[in-house]
């Protein structure tokens, strides 16, 4: 292949002068036909990579992505960047729509697809009819972590990849420990050539790390209110439940007078769109979100991310706090912890991973009473692979142990008296020598937003009144 001048294309087609860290290395590897695993932080510019591949090479770019809400956001983002031939294939399409898309696959440059949909035979048959430029698997850590977001169909991806005649792979994730990297690549063992693995150091020097232990729920709630009142935004607060995210948004609005709005996957697409855009345009001060919060749209100036609950492991924690300070400015990640908080996460693990009794009842007697839809799909997957009850139970036990172990690293982080940066970098197998010792603090008394220039100043911005409709129409249609 002739030498491609990546910088030139970047400028001409995308209007950027320089690549973000890692983008060029990854693109070079891809153009050299190497299978690539890239560990890039959220907002590290994943989209540009496959978009660029779409620009310099023919054929369809397939992007396997798990979250419906994220998929819509990614389509919107490509639309925003001027790509029109983008389509999302997922369960929200009607049968007729789907048929239509599959029939006209050649028209598209980018196909976002859920793992479930990709696992369907007719979809694979259609994909075999078109040249494939690149197969991207987003959130690829899902294959090995079995988190809350686990999708059984992720396990089938290596087989599907083979069936599609092994198109070039780009595996993407925001976080992966060394053992995860090995496990992911091992899944695609049929890929013969040497892999290119790109990993950035996980430490983000501009994100100050801070943890606090509170005595009980009441204190934690009051503390959150205080933090919002004293720390400058915009910010995001993470909760484990939608219900709490919603009720806390109301409470914080009335207590602080700030514009606090909930955002989670249970909202309608239109409501989510409005919240995203309001946040982007500075009409919202703080978003209360669940960990499923997938905001495909980058907001550069998020100053704080507060966790009201633990994440299910440090990988997820890192991913969530990574939304802060994309602009490189001073930001902070605060974790609030009350002894016992971890039980929520332990329960979540138990809910995701069925015990041996439930497995036995289902596999041998088809009893489904305590299993959810995803669990049944997963058990079916193993059943169809001729595994015995004992073998399946062993796999699940193993997974449960791994997840519990991962959770322990999160709990230790929350409970520890220091070395926060060290713990995170160490967990991801990064060098820990050059890490800052001062950009972190532990405990209520050690939180000094002023020293970080993050103290909140009253901006007097409150919820605006609804204007007269004819005034609004003038604004909508540029008639001032």
């Amino acid at each position, binding site marked *: 292949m002739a030498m491609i001048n990546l910088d030139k294309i970047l400028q001409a087609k995308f209007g950027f002068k320089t690549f973000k860290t890692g983008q060029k290395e990854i693109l070079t590897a891809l153009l050299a036909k190497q299978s690539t695993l890239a560990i890039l932080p959220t907002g590290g510019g994943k989209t540009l990579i496959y978009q660029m591949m779409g620009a310099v090479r023919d054929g369809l770019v397939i992007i396997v992505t798990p979250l419906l809400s994220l998929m*819509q*956001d990614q*389509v*919107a*983002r490509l*639309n*925003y*960047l*001027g790509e029109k031939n983008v*389509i999302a294939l997922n369960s*929200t*399409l*009607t049968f*007729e*729509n789907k048929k*239509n*898309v599959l029939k006209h696959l050649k028209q598209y440059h980018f196909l976002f697809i859920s793992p479930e949909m990709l696992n369907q035979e007719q979809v694979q048959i259609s994909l075999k009819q078109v040249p494939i430029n690149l197969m991207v698997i987003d959130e690829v850590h899902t294959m090995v972590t079995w988190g809350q977001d686990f999708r059984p169909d992720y396990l089938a991806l290596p087989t599907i990849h083979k069936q599609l005649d092994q198109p070039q792979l780009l595996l993407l994730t925001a976080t992966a420990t060394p053992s995860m990297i090995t496990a992911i690549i091992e899944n695609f063992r049929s890929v013969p050539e040497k892999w290119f693995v790109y990993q950035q150091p996980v430490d983000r020097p501009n994100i100050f790390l801070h943890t606090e232990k509170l005595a009980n729920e009441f204190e934690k709630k009051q503390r959150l209110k205080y933090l919002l009142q004293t720390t400058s935004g915009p910010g995001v607060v993470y909760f484990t439940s939608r219900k709490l995210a919603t009720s806390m948004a*109301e409470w914080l609005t009335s207590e602080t007078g700030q514009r606090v*709005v909930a955002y989670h996957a249970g909202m309608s*697409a*239109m*409501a989510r*769109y*409005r*919240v*995203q*855009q*309001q946040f*982007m*345009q500075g*009409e919202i001060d703080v978003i209360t979100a669940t960990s499923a919060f997938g905001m495909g*749209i980058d907001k550069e100036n998020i100053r704080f991310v507060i966790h009201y609950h633990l994440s299910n492991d440090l990988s997820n924690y890192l991913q969530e706090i990574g939304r802060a300070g994309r602009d490189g400015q001073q930001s902070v990640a605060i974790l609030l912890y009350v002894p016992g908080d971890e039980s929520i996460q332990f329960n979540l693990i138990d809910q995701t991973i069925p015990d041996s009794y439930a497995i036995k009842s289902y596999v041998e007697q088809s009893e489904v009473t305590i299993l959810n839809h995803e669990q049944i799909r997963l058990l079916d997957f193993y059943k169809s692979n001729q595994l015995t009850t004992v073998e399946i139970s062993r796999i699940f036990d193993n997974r449960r142990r791994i997840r519990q172990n991962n959770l322990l690293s999160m709990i230790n982080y929350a409970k520890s008296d220091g070395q926060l940066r060290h713990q995170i970098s160490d967990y991801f197998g990064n060098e820990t020598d050059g890490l800052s010792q001062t950009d972190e603090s532990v405990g209520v008394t050690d939180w000094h937003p002023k020293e970080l220039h993050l103290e909140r100043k009253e901006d007097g911005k409150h*919820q605006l*009144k*609804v*204007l*007269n*409709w*004819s005034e*609004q*129409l003038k*604004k*909508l*249609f*540029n*008639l001032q």
Partner: protein
Amino acid sequence: MITDFLITLFSSVQPRRHRVIFGLLRRRLTVSTEYWGLRYQLLPFVGLFPQLEKTTFDEQIAKLIKNGLLIEQQPNSGQLLLTDKGVVAQQEYHKHHYQLQYMPLTTQPLANVRQFREVFWLANQIISETAYHNKRYYPLQIDVKTKMLVKKWYRQTDKSHLIDNWLMALTQFLKQLDQQTANQFVATWVGHQLPGRNADQLGLPATWTATDFYLWEFDLFIFWSQTLLQSDSNSELKKLWQLTQQQQNLSPSVQLTCQQVHQGLSIATISQQRRLKIGTVREHLLTAAVWLPKTDFPYDLFLTPETLRYLQEHLAGNIDDWQFADIRTSDNPDEFFVFRLYEIYLTKQGA
């Protein structure tokens, strides 16, 4: 999301089957569901909650029973009545929540209104961005088919007058609303650097829930849709609206059966010609009778004076209490067809 709203769908005098109500809200229709939807005067609500989960619905019903707001007419009959306490709760609900104004009177399939709502949102956004000559924006993500409709519509619009034409159509409608409602309604729209307001940012009554907002917004789109249906305007908005009128209360197959009956074909002939079971043709006719105005269905073809006389002699009192067994004379399934058709006929007369 429908939690409290459910209580409005029950009555203190007419026992109602909760399974029928679920079928109507979710749009899982059988002829029997449609018939009872007619009897309960709940047909306009068909498809109001297309995502409704059976388990959620059942839990809500169980809760209403447990709290003493609903009572089963007979144990395990699935027929529910509002208790005195339930009547009070229903009145309280009406006081604190949005009162549907247009939906109860509409005959439009809600799926069409829903699609109109979505195409409107996107078209409005496109025009707003066009007005600012902006091409870089995040388009609303709506389903592919709906997006295609908007694209198709946009291609044929007269670009030189689009904004004026659009603005005029919007103004015409908004003027029909009271000032505050119009202000709030427009505030929900998305446009150039205008993210649109969500339910809790509009200054709507504090007692309103997410369901109220949904119903309020939907109701306005029903009204708008009704206005467009009646107007002979040739506006771009009307053209867009026309593209959304795809679903009909009667399926093409049912419509064909109706046509053939009007042309004088018998049920047996239709069945033979189209290789349909006789029972299916009868079901088509019952569905048509349920949905069509009384004058549009040829009742006299099936309810002859003699039949009517027989039925009048044997059936009296509240239609809902009638038992088919009381008039049955043979095993001929046609008898049930006639019985049910008679019930529909009387319902249409206001019985």
